């Protein structure tokens, strides 16, 4: 699936491409630095809710395009058997995207994703997920359906426990070195990267990872540590106004 998404990434204007399953979870992902897997996972859930609502009124939908002031999201249904039909292909693009080319490319890519899902290759989907893994991370475990989520350095992994997938979550924590207590904490870390990236660029992911290790060296990152982490990360921003903006964005909207 990596090659399919890479093909979409080569379209002018495409910033991220991903395959989502029926629950909005990312099956495979490629994206530029600011559209890392964490951000796309958040968005994937939101987009899936929108799709479910659209289906109430238009069951035969094939393509959904959301046009924004500075870009667009294009979602294409992956038709096929029951398993494949639950998947969608989504692209995040800027204004330079050629809509006609994108329509054709998405149609072709959706057929390939269908073949991949029906052929079972979705079990190793994210080999090309961006960003690249940090040095020292190990290879994906066989059978782990989200291997590069773990190795991306932005994979805030929920620790193993009741109700969680012990194999997947446990290995994720081990690989990334960052564990989270709950989905809200994971979402907060992704927001931290997004907000920090506005001021320091793609290095934000590294700063956040290091910041988490400083404020929570021994326990999974949790809501109680939101403010200490923001305090820590604020030190990475030189301009006082930018620093204040960063703090406000994260602490006043949580």
């Amino acid at each position, binding site marked *: 699936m990596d090659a399919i998404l890479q093909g979409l990434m080569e379209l002018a204007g495409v910033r991220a491409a991903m395959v989502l399953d029926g629950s909005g979870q990312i099956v495979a992902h490629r994206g530029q630095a600011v559209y890392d897997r964490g*951000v796309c996972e958040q968005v994937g859930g939101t987009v899936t809710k*929108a799709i479910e*609502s659209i289906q109430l*009124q*238009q069951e035969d939908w094939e393509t959904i*395009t959301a046009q924004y002031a500075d870009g667009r999201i294009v979602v294409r249904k992956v038709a096929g058997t029951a398993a494949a039909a639950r998947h969608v292909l989504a692209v995040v693009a800027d204004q330079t995207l050629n809509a006609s080319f994108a329509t054709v490319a998405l149609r072709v890519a959706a057929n390939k994703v269908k073949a991949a899902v029906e052929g079972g290759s979705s079990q190793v989907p994210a080999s090309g997920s961006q960003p690249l893994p940090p040095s020292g991370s190990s290879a994906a475990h066989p059978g782990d359906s989200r291997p590069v989520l773990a190795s991306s350095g932005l994979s805030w992994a929920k620790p193993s426990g009741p109700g969680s997938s012990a194999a997947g979550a446990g290995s994720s924590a081990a690989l990334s070195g960052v564990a989270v207590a709950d989905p809200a904490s994971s979402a907060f870390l992704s927001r931290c990267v997004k907000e920090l990236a506005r001021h320091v660029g793609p290095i934000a992911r590294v700063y956040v990872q290091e910041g988490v290790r400083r404020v929570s060296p021994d326990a999974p990152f949790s809501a109680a540590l939101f403010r200490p982490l923001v305090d820590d990360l604020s030190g990475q921003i030189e301009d006082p106004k930018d620093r204040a903006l960063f703090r406000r964005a994260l602490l006043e909207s949580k």
Partner: protein
Amino acid sequence: MSELAHIADLPDVRSAVAGDLAGSLLDAVREKDGEAIAAVTGFVASALAQAGDELGLGALRRISVVGAASGCVVAVEGDRVITARLAAAKSIPAVERFLDGAGNGRV
């Protein structure tokens, strides 16, 4: 003629509904289930606006849904959400152009 009636008169447009991002119905033309349409499109527009915000794409302007046999165009302007349901997806570009014109005050 109101903006909504103009939209409903475009080729292949089955109905037109005006609502807001909270899902409330403001007006409807040829749509007996306007409240449901306004509720759904209000929610969809809110969700996709949030997604765009998270991705830094700016304000949501329009949503187009292409189906095998039909289509739908949702225009968002501020808090207002206008939905045009189409009998044929091929007419979506024409409706989009009209709604972009409406957004620029040409209607």
